[in-house]
């Protein structure tokens, strides 16, 4: 297997292919109404999760958002349990209580995603504070969209992380749009890299369609965090192919030029990474991941719904 080899492109391709194909299967299944949950797809944005998470250990802690399928899968989350969760079944990662927007798998450090924009960021900083207090070797990675940086919570969190030199990497997935609102209509000043640097957090900016560069830069930033040098920030330019929520394209809303989307689809990061691999290896990876996905869907189909009494479970912890 290539996972522990020196072929990061192969690892990235496997991860990105899994994400792409799981979400394509969600699109295929959605009309059956078996997935009764809003889905916020990551198609087009797979490279960010895959490139960053390739450097992480299962003990490293990850916080993300409702657009979280890619993260969950890239961090090694359990695929059958994710599908069962989308189906609302008892074998789901949260027994059907979470759905697509709140995927969780603590066994691999996937801490659970939040549907209220920016609310997970301070939780991630708090987790980093705890790791520092506990003198842990683990670190925290916090994913969010550029929309989150509009929120005061992001600014407050960046300030505290820097103040306490916490072991955390902030990963901003800048896909330009908060639902249909363009970043240029929301962001003043010289941009997010400069804002991060103003908090004393070394920051960088990586363009879309440079997945291997992103992989390399994320690795360098994470290494600095692991050395105890405090927080780092990466702004990853990326692009959402599908609607903000739901399985379809959103060209009918006319909020972005068709040509812009077409160019992104033409210049597909998955193909870019795939082209770095020999055909034989790429096909092997694809076949293996197809099997995983088919098995995961079969697992979700076969699982049962929770019993009525479960509605009261876990309001409080024991």
């Amino acid at each position, binding site marked *: 297997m290539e996972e522990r080899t020196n072929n990061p492109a192969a690892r990235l391709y496997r991860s990105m292919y899994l994400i792409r194909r799981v979400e394509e299967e969600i699109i295929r299944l959605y009309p059956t109404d078996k997935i009764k949950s809003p889905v916020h797809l990551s198609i087009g944005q797979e490279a960010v999760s895959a490139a960053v998470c390739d450097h992480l250990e299962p003990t490293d802690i990850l916080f993300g958002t409702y657009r979280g399928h890619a993260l969950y899968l890239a961090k090694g989350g359990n695929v059958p349990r994710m599908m069962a969760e989308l189906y609302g079944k008892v074998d789901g990662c949260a027994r059907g209580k*979470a759905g697509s927007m709140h995927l969780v798998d603590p066994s691999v450090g996937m801490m659970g995603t939040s549907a209220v924009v920016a609310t997970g960021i301070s939780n991630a900083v708090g987790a980093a504070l705890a790791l520092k207090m506990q003198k842990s070797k683990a670190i925290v990675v916090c994913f969010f969209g550029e929309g989150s940086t509009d929120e005061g919570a992001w600014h407050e969190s960046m300030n505290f992380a820097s103040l306490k030199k916490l072991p955390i990497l902030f990963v901003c997935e800048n896909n330009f749009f908060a639902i249909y609102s363009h970043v240029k209509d929301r962001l003043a000043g010289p941009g997010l890299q400069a804002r991060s640097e103003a908090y004393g957090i070394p920051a960088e900016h990586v363009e879309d369609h440079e997945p291997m560069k992103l992989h390399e830069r994320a690795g360098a930033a994470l290494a600095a965090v692991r050395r105890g040098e405090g927080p780092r920030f990466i702004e990853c330019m990326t692009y959402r192919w599908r609607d903000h929520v739901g399985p379809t394209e959103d060209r009918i809303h006319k909020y972005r030029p068709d040509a812009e989307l077409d160019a992104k689809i033409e210049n597909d990061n998955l193909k870019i990474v795939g082209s770095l691999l020999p055909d034989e290896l790429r096909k092997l990876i694809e076949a293996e991941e197809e099997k995983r996905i088919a098995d995961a869907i079969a697992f979700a189909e076969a699982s049962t719904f929770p019993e009525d009494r479960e509605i009261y479970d876990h309001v409080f912890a024991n």
Partner: protein
Amino acid sequence: MSSPTEGRTLTYGEAVFEATQAEMRRDPKVFVMGQGVDDARGMFGTTLGLQKEFGPERNFDVPLAEDAMTGIGIGAALMGMRPIQVHQRMDFVLLCMNQIVNMAAKMSYMFSGAHHVPMVIRAIIGRSWGQGAQHSQAFHSYFMHIPGLRVVAPTTPHDAKGCLITAIRDNNPVIMIEHRMLHNVKGVVPTESYEIPYGKARVLSPGKDITIVGISHMALECVRAKHLLEAANIDAEVIDPVSLSPLDAETIAKSVERTGRLLVVDTGWLSCGASSEILSEVFERIGARRPFVAKRLGYLPTPCPTTKILENLYYPSPQSIAEAAYQLTRGADAPVWKAGKVDSNEVAEFRGPF
């Protein structure tokens, strides 16, 4: 629930400190964060000296960033730490609502037990000496509304210590309401550690004619009202709920079943408030078989005025409580009765500055 009547006395503030110190000694995961928790005032003495004993990692000041600081506490709690967050005024807890309601209260349920949030939020309600509209608000009912949160409002130093210890050891988020007027009130507090259970009301003083429920500082005012009512030969039972969520409606309902009269006095507004909840819960339990009369008292339906002369009208007093209880007991047609005068020393003597 009973508590000792003899032994060492502490102020409420000292009891809060003692509980915090003891738990921090017992469990290295417990830490205290908040604006001013390490300053010379030491949160009205309740955190004074903690940094010296436990170091700046376990007792530290924070930026003026209530939203993120609450989320940071939650994040630390998710990783197994046990933060205590302190707010000098509950008014500022409004800035924390997103994290408390959307995150802390949801983590256990939303992730089916994969996570829990062992965190305590101490929220201090101000009053008197010009606190005005934004340093005097009591929002306990907001939190009582939310599944997944516990809300406690201890009145006595004994219960303050026990409630805080219970809250710190709990794996759930707990909002502890402390009324500023209570910090200097003295009472018997055992030196050893003990827990006050959730959902157990305390009968502060038994009686047979009317049930008076007083929340937080109002419980003290209700005990004073009881003494005023003795002049009118009315024997009031005063109950302190101690724990607001879960609420021990059973103890209150049993009392009302005997007395046939219920007066609820809240340290807060009436509309959609704790008093509404208590009255509803009692009615649902016994209303069909035991008719009873009821009334609620609380803050006037205005923002809190700063000037003392108006502020005096804003809060229920032992006199207004006693007169309301009298009217409930003797009926609306009874001759007007004026209660005697009694000082609420903790209010009269308070000189702030806040």
